């Protein structure tokens, strides 16, 4: 029974882990500009993240080593420093963006001033993370994030042209506005395969003291959890396409995304959407702040983990506290979380190879993995995605400049 429960909870957490502010911004805007044409990119990103989370979860379960351990052991000290600095910068940007999203959702729900809500959100997170246990946080946010499923209903109710939706799943190149199309391809892939997800996932597996007998659980979490998370991404893009494309609206505000649910479902729809966004983005805030703390602690060899409590891992606790304060500082400058999200996703794309290459290397090491080393399928997909990641990483910055961060 507890196994079924664990499975369900893991899947819920994974759904929450998959959908974050990056998915909201990129998928809905992509829908608003290109209709359903970019649905295929979500599929590619989804398979990529499933392949690599399964791999890093397996490494965590079998060897007890998390992703940043693998990075330091495999690519050498110097490259690990580069990986650490870039991942911390990207994590911090993402954290600030997610926390900004939390504050926006709270503002739309309560009508209170945005800046006050930022402070409130940061303080609430700090207290909750300090005091409560890991599972508890994951569960509450996971269940809250399920409200996002309202977007699946919205997407269906809006009555999209299903024939066009179908053709959107077939990979193709756009004939108009190629540069912007490419920008969105990179953005959608980037947000689906954000590195913080694997940092958090693998360290989370160790927090839950996974062993070889949890490999089935790992696979189910990766495939079903992210699979369902991907369904949400489809729904968001279809919603964007069905609602905004015909009206020529480009949603520049997170609130516009929530309003999309009001159109077909009324106030209840809006409320569910806002609560869903609040918890999805809130859970992503927790994932990113921990990812940042895991990485630094693992690089330095410090004790880490929620399961150690602040007393057992004080430097780890100090790290996430500092990250929260820094993110608060960034948001207080008044930077728009949506813009911040776009930059965070594109910079994270550049850092992708340094994260994924070491995972693939360790997952292939017999001395570590014994009979659980990568099989042909995992390696086939793993290598294929390395190529994809390299291309996307090289293209990210030029596209960002050429399209003026997607503004034209």
């Amino acid at each position, binding site marked *: 029974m507890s196994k079924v429960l664990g499975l369900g909870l893991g899947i819920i957490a994974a759904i929450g882990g998959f959908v974050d502010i990056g998915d909201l911004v990129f998928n809905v805007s992509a829908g608003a500009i290109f209709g359903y044409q970019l649905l295929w990119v979500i599929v590619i990103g989804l398979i990529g993240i499933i392949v690599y989370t399964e791999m890093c979860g397996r490494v965590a379960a079998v060897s007890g080593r998390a992703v940043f351990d693998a990075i330091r052991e*495999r*690519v050498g000290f110097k490259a690990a420093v580069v990986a650490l600095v870039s991942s911390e910068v990207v994590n911090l940007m993402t954290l600030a963006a997610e926390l900004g999203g939390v504050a926006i959702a709270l503002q739309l729900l309560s009508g209170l001033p945005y800046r006050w809500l930022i402070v409130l959100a940061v303080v609430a997170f700090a207290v909750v993370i300090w005091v409560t246990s890991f599972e508890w946080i994951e569960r509450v946010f996971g269940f809250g994030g399920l409200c996002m499923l309202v977007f699946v209903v919205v997407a269906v109710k809006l009555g999209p042209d299903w024939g066009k939706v179908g053709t959107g799943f077939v990979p193709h190149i756009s004939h108009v506005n190629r540069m912007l199309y490419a920008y969105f391809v990179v953005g959608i892939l980037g947000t689906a395969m954000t590195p913080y997800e694997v940092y958090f996932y693998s360290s989370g597996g160790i927090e839950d003291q996974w062993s070889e007998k949890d490999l089935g659980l790992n696979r189910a979490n990766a495939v079903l959890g992210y699979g369902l998370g991907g369904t949400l991404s489809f729904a968001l893009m279809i919603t964007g396409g069905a609602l905004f494309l015909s009206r020529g609206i480009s949603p520049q505000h997170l609130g516009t995304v929530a309003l999309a649910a009001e159109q077909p479902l009324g106030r209840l729809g809006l409320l569910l959407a806002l609560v869903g966004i609040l918890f999805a983005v809130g859970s992503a805030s927790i994932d990113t702040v921990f990812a940042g703390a895991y990485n630094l602690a693992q690089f330095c060899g410090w004790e880490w983990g929620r399961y150690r409590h602040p007393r057992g891992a004080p430097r780890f606790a100090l790290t996430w506290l500092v990250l929260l304060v820094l993110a608060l500082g960034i948001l207080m400058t008044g930077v728009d979380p949506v813009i911040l999200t776009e930059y965070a996703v594109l910079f994270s794309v550049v850092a992708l190879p340094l994260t994924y290459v070491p995972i693939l*290397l*360790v997952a*292939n*090491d*017999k001395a570590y993995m014994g009979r659980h080393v990568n099989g042909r399928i995992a390696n086939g997909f793993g290598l294929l995605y390395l190529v994809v990641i390299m291309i996307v990483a090289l293209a990210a910055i030029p596209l960002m400049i050429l399209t003026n961060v997607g503004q034209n």
Partner: protein
Amino acid sequence: MRTLSSFLRREVVTESGRSLGRCYDLRGELSATNLRVTGLCIGRRALLEHLGIRDQKPQTVVPWEAIVRIEGKQIVVRDDDAPAP
């Protein structure tokens, strides 16, 4: 005293001046009580091996006994013990 890091990425040459590539790792023998250094892993294949990519053929290891001297940024080994070019 030397450190492991002082060996890494150093160029390995033979006494007659032939370059064997860089040293990417040290081969050791681990027992319950000690860890002895037995050789230098050199060349591109050793780099791949260091990254955990292994092929079946034995990689290029120069035994420690072959080292004549360690000077500056180079490790000089005896010609007889160097792998064929």
